[in-house]
């Protein structure tokens, strides 16, 4: 025996417990971390591969037509886009709706279902911070989905040398419209998603609310002579009940878009636009307040 017991070729040191002496960044930082984590989760990042499929499919589905339109516009040497920025969002409005229905429960119901919420509340961030971070994350995610095709369209328009001023103005209209969609959708979607720990229920309920109100609005609009050649402005009041038509008709009226086109939805007159805007803001604020209330006793 030549090896002495105290000779080792390698030793694993147990360095024991090391206390943390570094900075503690507090509540604002925690809220920001929750925002980033939630925004990533909305696109399935940091989660399983499977959960990335749907959000990116929807993002792609939202952006792809804009590329196709660009290609056609360039190829056929047109002087303007077949669809304006605001019209684009209205035409493809179902995709952001599906995104909302699928991903709002990812942000809210999962935390409820797996009882993670009490863990958050046992840390510096408050209930208000939690709802704010989640709302900001949902809003940002929707903005990415809504604004990406608009920015692609604008880039294409610049490449095709369409008039800059006009395009810039209409891009702005489109972005305002995107902000309004994102605000209202986030408030409604998160409120519904926060009501149930079951993701499936959340998805179905959000989709249901958006689809049924849309159908109701269309039917009532038609019954009130909305599609008649001499349509009465009063028929347009029904657009108030549906989130997507509310934003669409408000933006069109606000910016005077397609006023000569009977197929374009409009809020009834200037007073109507004011009411529509007030309702939109009230719904957003109300949804947010109710979501806050929901977490008061968790």
């Amino acid at each position, binding site marked *: 025996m030549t090896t002495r017991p105290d000779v080792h070729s390698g030793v694993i040191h147990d360095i024991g417990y090391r*206390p*943390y002496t570094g900075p503690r960044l507090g*509540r604002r*930082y925690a809220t920001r971390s929750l925002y980033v*984590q939630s925004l990533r989760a909305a696109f399935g990042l940091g989660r399983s591969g499977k959960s990335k499929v749907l959000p990116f499919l929807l993002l792609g589905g939202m952006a792809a037509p804009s590329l196709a339109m660009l290609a056609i516009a360039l190829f056929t040497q047109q002087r303007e886009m077949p669809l304006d920025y605001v019209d684009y969002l209205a035409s493809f409005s179902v995709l952001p709706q599906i995104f909302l229905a699928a991903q709002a429960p990812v942000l809210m119901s999962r935390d409820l279902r797996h009882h*993670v919420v*009490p863990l958050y509340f046992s840390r510096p961030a408050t209930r208000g911070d939690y709802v704010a971070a989640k709302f900001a994350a949902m809003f940002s995610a929707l903005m990415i989905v809504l604004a990406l095709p608009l920015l692609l369209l604008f880039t294409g328009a610049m490449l095709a040398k369409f008039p800059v001023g006009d395009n810039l103005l209409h891009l702005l209209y489109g972005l305002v419209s995107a902000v309004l969609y994102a605000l209202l959708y986030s408030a409604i979607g998160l409120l519904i998603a926060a009501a149930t720990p079951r993701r499936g229920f959340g998805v179905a309920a959000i989709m249901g609310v958006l689809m049924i109100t849309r159908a109701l609005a269309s039917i009532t609009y038609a019954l009130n002579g909305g599609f008649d050649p001499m349509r009465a402005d009063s028929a347009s009041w029904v657009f108030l009940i549906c989130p997507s038509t509310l934003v669409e008709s408000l933006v069109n009226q606000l910016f005077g878009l397609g006023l000569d086109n009977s197929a374009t939805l409009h809020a009834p007159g200037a007073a109507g636009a004011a009411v529509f805007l007030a309702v939109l803001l009230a719904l957003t604020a109300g949804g947010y307040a109710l979501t806050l209330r929901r977490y008061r006793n968790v």
Partner: protein
Amino acid sequence: MSTVIKTDGLTKRFSRVTALDRLTVEVESGVVGLVGANGAGKSTLIKILLGLSPATEGTGQVLGLDIATQGPAIRERVGYMPEHDCLPPDVSATEFVVHMARMSGLPAAAARERTADTLRHVGLYEERYRPMGGYSTGMKQRVKLAQALVHDPRLVLLDEPTNGLDPVGRDEMLALIRRVHADFGISVLVTTHLLGELERTCDHLVVIDGGKLLRSSSTASFTSATQLLAVEVTDHPVDRDFDADAALTARLTAAGLNVRADGSRVLLVEIAGDGTYDTVRDAVDDLGLGLIRLEQRRHRVAEIFSTRSDEDQDEHERGDGAGYDAYRAAAAGGEQA
């Protein structure tokens, strides 16, 4: 020793029930057991201590911070392990604990480093990269403990940490809790409705029942009120019908000792003095029996509850054991401490 938790007349009333009733208690650093039946108010107390739920009346301090006004500061320095499952199944332990560290205010790099350290300390190695849905209950409890410790709090509140664990897992968890204080220097408040495990782990016990404080004192004062000697003997080597236990009980009682049976075949003898050991040895030898076991045993904390429920009855039946009265006297003395 510094005061970690202090409450003064803490009361929490819900519309129908009073969850906490004028609770006044002071707890020093160390491992403290919060004992009470289900619905005794343990979880309510934890919520109030975290500043999550306002007390109806009374005041309290955690780490010298006021629970009513300094909730965020408390929550930055305190870790909390909830009773229920709180782990999303599609996320790995590492990712989850890193996120929770950042939610406690740790910068990203520190959060990752502390997560690796903490998961190692609670005994989670390669499996920490797998989604938590596939973890055993024991592993899940470890992750829950890790997320409570990751930001190096000065106090952790552990709500039923041994729930759902098998005996081995339970012992490991208790050893871990002991280490949290002994090695990590973090004070621990641990709740349970199982008393046996607390007396091995805790320095101090707080017993609440129906929202009221029953007792708050050191574990030693609960358990050392009277010393007992557990005695176990063999059957008589020749005479099969000889009742060894009965004979020994008779002998020892005759010698002026208090003897009672504890389950099958174990006799508990109260230690009157050093001579007791000799008396037992000689009695066993005289009877020609073999001595299997002769060990000191302390009173179990569980006896507080069994004796309390007998209390009313006992008022009428004085003298059903001097030992019990002695124990109660000692317990009353302990309350002053």
